[in-house]
């Protein structure tokens, strides 16, 4: 049965997240935007307590969890990424690890001091084209260890992962000549010799979140830290197991990124609506278009675009919760939400004039924050490529 009603539990979870966003997050939002590399210690501690109680990853797999994340990002998308959790690293371990690895690597996120997990795919010479990564993993048969060498950039939470007792899932190739078939994920735990944080970026937005460079210099990790099989199967590239696993992770995380985008988008929309309401300007739904004011039309177009992305996101997450393959729908949601959040936030700044551009309010910040959703976890174009390949039933060779 087609149904749009949330369960009481889901609603309660969303309400709680909204309250926290309003009361805890919003008051510190501006400060950590202006103090880029400072850590929000109280916030981290409080989030850690909460999540240790809930036990585990931010990547809940259901509709409720996605809407909770939406509320978190309505509060602050940067701070949401700072909340200690296994993050994208945890998602990769869940997608590709054995039961034993999952237990081994993820247990720490429910106990002790705050910890973070991260995922490192991007390199200076390989962003969208993930298959071009140069980082290598070589098995030292004498010690039965993998030896990693390379440079990973733009790792969300990379610094906090390595400076807490956390971990980073690093994508490396065991055989450069094998292309995608040679790509494997490896768990690099904090404190491993040869793995060092080299740089933390200064960014346009989501400044509370650290975006780090990780240098791997003869970094040795135990054999068991490879996720999935070490075997290199030379088959048609898009069918290879290692690569498929990376993509499976993205199918899980892309709807979440869409939810994050929507949180920032709704924050901006709410700002616009509340400002107009204060000025006594109503939004009259249901009027013929020739009777609408330009402001009403703008707001309605923003709301319609928001709804379009929201329903696509809900469908993708719902499919995930039903264990249905959702690669197409996840990319549709991500592509749409990325475009929509960039547009809504920019439009809101434009509409609100001096209020929009001023750092006295958060609107300009949301425009800077929102843009990231059209870039990471596959740029808008890369997600369009995925959608196009799926609808055309094309391989990556047929549509580059």
């Amino acid at each position, binding site marked *: *049965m*087609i149904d749009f*009603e*949330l369960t009481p539990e889901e609603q309660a979870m969303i309400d709680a997240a909204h309250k926290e966003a309003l009361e805890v997050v919003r008051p510190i939002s501006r400060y950590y935007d202006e103090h880029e590399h400072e850590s929000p210690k109280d916030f981290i501690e409080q989030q850690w307590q909460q999540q240790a109680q809930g036990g585990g990853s931010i990547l809940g797999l259901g509709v409720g969890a996605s809407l909770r994340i939406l509320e978190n990002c309505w509060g602050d998308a940067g701070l949401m990424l700072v909340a200690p959790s296994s993050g994208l690293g945890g998602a990769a371990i869940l997608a590709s690890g054995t039961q034993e690895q999952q237990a081994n690597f993820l247990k720490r996120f429910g106990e002790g001091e705050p910890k973070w997990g991260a995922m490192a795919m991007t390199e200076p010479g390989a962003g969208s084209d993930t298959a071009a990564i140069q980082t290598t993993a070589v098995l030292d048969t004498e010690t039965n260890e993998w030896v990693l060498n390379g440079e990973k950039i733009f790792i969300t939470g990379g610094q906090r992962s390595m400076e807490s007792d956390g971990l980073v899932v690093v994508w490396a190739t065991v055989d450069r000549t094998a292309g995608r078939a040679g790509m494997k994920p490896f768990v690099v735990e904090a404190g491993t010799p040869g793995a060092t944080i080299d740089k933390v970026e200064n960014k346009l937005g989501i400044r509370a979140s650290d975006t780090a460079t990780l240098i791997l210099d003869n970094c040795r990790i135990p054999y068991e830290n490879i996720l999935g099989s070490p075997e290199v199967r030379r088959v048609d590239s898009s069918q290879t197991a290692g690569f498929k696993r990376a993509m499976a992770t993205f199918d899980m995380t892309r709807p979440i990124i869409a939810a994050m985008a929507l949180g920032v988008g709704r924050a901006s929309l709410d700002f616009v609506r509340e400002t107009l309401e204060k000025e006594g300007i109503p939004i009259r739904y249901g009027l013929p278009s020739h009777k609408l004011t330009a402001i009403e039309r703008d707001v309605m177009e923003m709301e319609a675009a928001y709804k379009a992305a929201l329903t696509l996101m809900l469908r993708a997450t719902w499919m995930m919760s039903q264990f249905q393959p959702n690669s197409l729908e996840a990319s549709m949601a991500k592509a749409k939400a990325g475009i929509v959040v960039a547009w809504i936030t920019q439009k809101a700044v434009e509409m609100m004039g001096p209020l929009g551009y001023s750092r006295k309010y958060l609107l300009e910040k949301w425009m800077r924050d929102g843009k990231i959703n059209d870039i990471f976890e596959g740029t808008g174009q890369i997600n369009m*490529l995925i959608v196009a*390949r799926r*609808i055309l039933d*094309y391989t990556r060779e047929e549509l580059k």
Partner: protein
Amino acid sequence: MISFSPSEEQQMIVNMVKEFNNDHVRKVYRECDESGEIPANIIDTAWELGFIASSIPEEFQGFGGERSALTGTLIAEELAWGDLSMAMHILCPALVAMPVVEMGTDEQKKQYLPSFCGDKFKVATSALIEPRFDFDPAELQTTAKRANGGYILSGEKCYVPLAADADLLLVYANEGGNTQGFLIEKGTPGLEIAEREKNMGIKALATYELSLKDCKVPKENRLGGDAGCDFNRIYNLSRVALSAMAVGVGRAAFEYARDYAKERHAFGEPIASRQAIAFMLAEMAIDIDATRLMTWEAAWKLDRNEDATKEASLAKMYADDMAINVTNNAVQVLGGHGYIREHPVELWFRNGRGFATFDGMAIV
């Protein structure tokens, strides 16, 4: 609990419509657009599928199925995928039947509903749109004035489907600032049906202008009697129906363009393997899906008897844009061939442009 899967029964109905489309509609729709005629056997076959009788309670000779706007959107999308003119023709009687089912007085139900449950297509229609650029359904120029215990209606209407053959019309008029509906039977003095309209699209659907010249209507014929009707709800049911139809038309155009793009070679490879074409198709697919989901949400709210003005109007606004963008892109993907009437994309483009105009011409 949030879910996006239609029920088994809904899926069965959708499959039935798909079959009907493939066996009947898609075999002739092109010719119908050229000739302006829909073969009677298609309308009869569709009538036998019982789209309208199924939502009419058994006490009025209907099948007594559950009335659901959501199921209605699934049917409307699928029928419009087959052909928009035929979809509007087939569902035209619902323009009267559904408002009577929901808001009619007991007498009105008894008097009119059984006639929608017979063996033959019941020609009934409704008149809402007026021939002016600033038409506003909430401030109609057609007026209904009380006189001698009844009403006198005057005004002009257009885009009234099947008006010439209809024996029952639901005419909307401005009664003291509110939009109300009046059931008018064929031959009522003052009701004058003009010649058939000539439109850019939906050419197989017979639509008419009509005028009401001091047309006397008994007070019992006011929809809902003394209580009147909730026009806002009727209008939202219409927005949802039209949005669903826009999805059907968009999907038809998208599928055709997608298949063509894989076949057509230029510069040594299928045009679909160029991002300029592939991204256009991807965007079309995304907006079609988004419109469908928004439409479902609005229909779902209507089924819960909640006010869905915001959801339905946003969905319709999105659907209007989607319909024209998607069908325009479909023509573009076919290049010069898209401009030629051998291919159907130009038909969908002409039909797609209409959604911003089609007000109240379908209902779920």
